[in-house]
C-alpha cells in the first residue's frame, strides 16, 4: 500500500470532469444536468485536495479552497433546483429540450 501518485488523482478528476461535462451538455433531464454540474465541481475538489497533498507546495490552502467550492456548489444547486421548481410549476416538464419558448 504505497502512496498513490498525484497523476492518478488528476486523471480521476479529469474523467469525472468529462463525465460531468458530457452529462451537462447531453442529458435531457434538468435534474441530471444539475447533478452533472455538481460532478464537475467535485472533480475540481478532487484536484484541489490532491494538489494540496501532493502538489507543488503541500499545505492546507487547497483544502480550504475546496471548502469554498463545496459551499458554492451547494448554493448553486440550491438556486438551480429552486429555479427548476418554479419552471416546473409553469411548464410541467423538466426536459431541457422542451425549454424553447424563446426560440419560437
Amino acid at each position: 500500500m504505497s502512496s498513490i501518485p498525484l497523476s492518478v488523482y488528476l486523471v480521476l478528476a479529469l474523467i469525472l470532469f468529462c463525465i460531468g461535462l458530457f452529462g451537462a451538455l447531453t442529458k435531457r433531464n434538468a435534474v441530471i444536468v444539475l447533478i452533472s454540474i455538481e460532478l464537475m465541481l467535485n472533480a475540481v475538489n478532487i484536484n484541489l485536495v490532491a494538489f494540496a497533498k501532493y502538489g507543488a507546495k503541500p499545505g492546507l490552502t487547497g483544502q480550504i479552497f475546496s471548502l469554498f467550492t463545496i459551499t458554492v456548489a451547494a448554493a448553486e444547486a440550491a438556486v438551480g433546483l429552486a429555479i427548476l421548481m418554479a419552471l416546473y410549476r409553469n411548464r410541467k416538464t423538466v426536459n431541457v429540450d422542451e425549454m424553447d419558448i424563446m426560440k419560437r
Partner: protein
Amino acid sequence: MDLHTLTSMNWGIMAPEFAILGTAIILSLLDLFMPRTQSRRPLGILAIAGIAAAFIFLYLQFGHEGASLFHDMYRLDSFSKAFKLILLLGTGLILILAYDYRMNEEEEYRGEFYYLLLTALLGAMFMASSGDMITLFIGLELLSLSSYVMAGMRKRKLESNEAAFKYVVTGGISTAITMFGMSYVFGLTGETNLYAVGAALRDTSILQNQFLLVFAFFITFAGLTFKIASAPFHMWAPDVYQGSPLPVTAFLSVVSKTAGFAIILRFFLLCFSSAPGIKGDPLLLQVQPYLAVLAGATMIAGNVIALRQRNIKRLFAYSSVAQAGYILVPFVSVSALLFETTWFYLLAYLFMNIGAFAVIQEVTAASGTNDISGFAGLYKRSPWLAVAMTIFILSLAGIPATAGFAGKFGIFMNALGTNPGHYILAGILMAGTVVSYFYYFNIIGQMFFRSGQEERAIQHKKGLLFVTALCAAATVFFGIFPGTALHFFYNEFHLTDFFQTLGQK
C-alpha cells in the same frame, strides 16, 4: 491574529463594500418585516442611497494610496477603484430603471430584487478588488448566484423561468470549467494569491509542466468568458436577456460584463504575465492568435446573428456579445494602452447600453411588445426619446462624436499599436461594425421612417427620463471630450500598483 490585529487593520478601505453589504442586509430585513401589501418601492430609494454612500466612500478613497487586507485577498488599488467606479455607476443607474420597472403580478418580489441587485454588485466589486483566487471565485459566484435569481424574478412568467434555468446551467458549467482551470493553476504553483502565482510561474521549473499550464490557461479563460458572454460561451445571452426582467438584462449586459472583464484582466495579467509558453515565447504572446480567433468569432457571431433578430432584447443580447468581442481586442493584443482603453470603452458602454435599455424599457412598456416594431414611429410619439435612442445607437455603432467612437478608437489603437499589428482582428472589428449598422440603423429606421399604429405620446417616467438624459449627455460628452475621462483616469489611477503586492495598511 487577535483582537489587536483586528482593530489595527484598516477596515476603512473596504468602506464601499461595507456600505453595500449593510444596505443589502437592511433592505432584506425591512422587506421581511414590511406588510405584504405595502409597496416595496421605497426600498429602491434606500438601495440607491446605499449606492450613493458607497460611491462617496469610493470617491474619498481616490486620494488613498494602495492598500490591502489579508495579503492581497482584498486590494484597494487603482485598478479596483477604476472598475468599481463603473460598477457602482452602472448599478446605480440600473436601480433607477428598476425603480420604474413594472413587474405586474410579481410586485411583491420587488424588495428581493433590490437587495439581490446589491449583493450581485457586492460580488462584482469583490471581483474587481481581489488579488486571490479564492476571493475572486467567491465574488464571481456571489455575482452569478444573485444574477441567476434575478433572472428568474418574474417567477410566474415561463420566459423568466427558462431564462433563469438556462443561466444557471450554463453558468454552473462555466463555473466548473473556470474552477477546473484554477485548480490546475493552484496545483502547478501551490498558491492562490495571484501575485504569488505569477511569481511561481516565473520559475523555470514550471517548464516541465508547460502543457498543463497552457491547458489551465485556456480552460480558465474559456470559463471566464462566460461572464462577458463571448464566444464560445455566448449562447446563454440571448435567451437570458430576453427572458429576464429588463433591469436585470441591463445589469447582465453592463455590470456583470464589466466585472467579467475586471476578473479576466486581473487574473490573466497577474498570473500569466510572466509565464513561459511552450518552447520559448511567453505564454501570453503565444496564445494571442487563439484569443484573437475567440475575439473575432465573438464579434462575427454577435453581429451576424443579431441581423436576424426581431426581438429587441435578443437583438441587444447579440449586440452586447459583439461588444464583448470588441472589448476583448485590447486583451488579445496586450499593448501598453490596455487598461485605459478597456476602461474607457467600458465606461462608454455603460452609458450607451444602460441608456438604450432605459429607452427600451420605456418603449416596450408603452407598446407592450418586445418586437422591434414597437419602436415604429417613436419619433412622432416622443421625439426626445427617439433622439436619445439614436445617440445611444450611434454610440454603440461607433459613430464619431459619441463615446462609443472614442472607445472604439482606443481599441483600434490597441490592435494596431503592437508590433506586428493585429490587422486581421482590426479588419474583423471594422467589418463587424459595418454589419452592426444594419441592425442598429434598422432601429433608427423604425423610429424615424416608419409610423406605428400607436400615435399617442408616451407617458414618461421621471426616473427613466433622468437615466436616459444622463446617459445621453454622458455619451455625447465623452464622445466630444474623451480627453476628460482619460485625464481623470491618468490622474486618479496610477496603475503602477496593479502589478505590485501591497502591504497591509
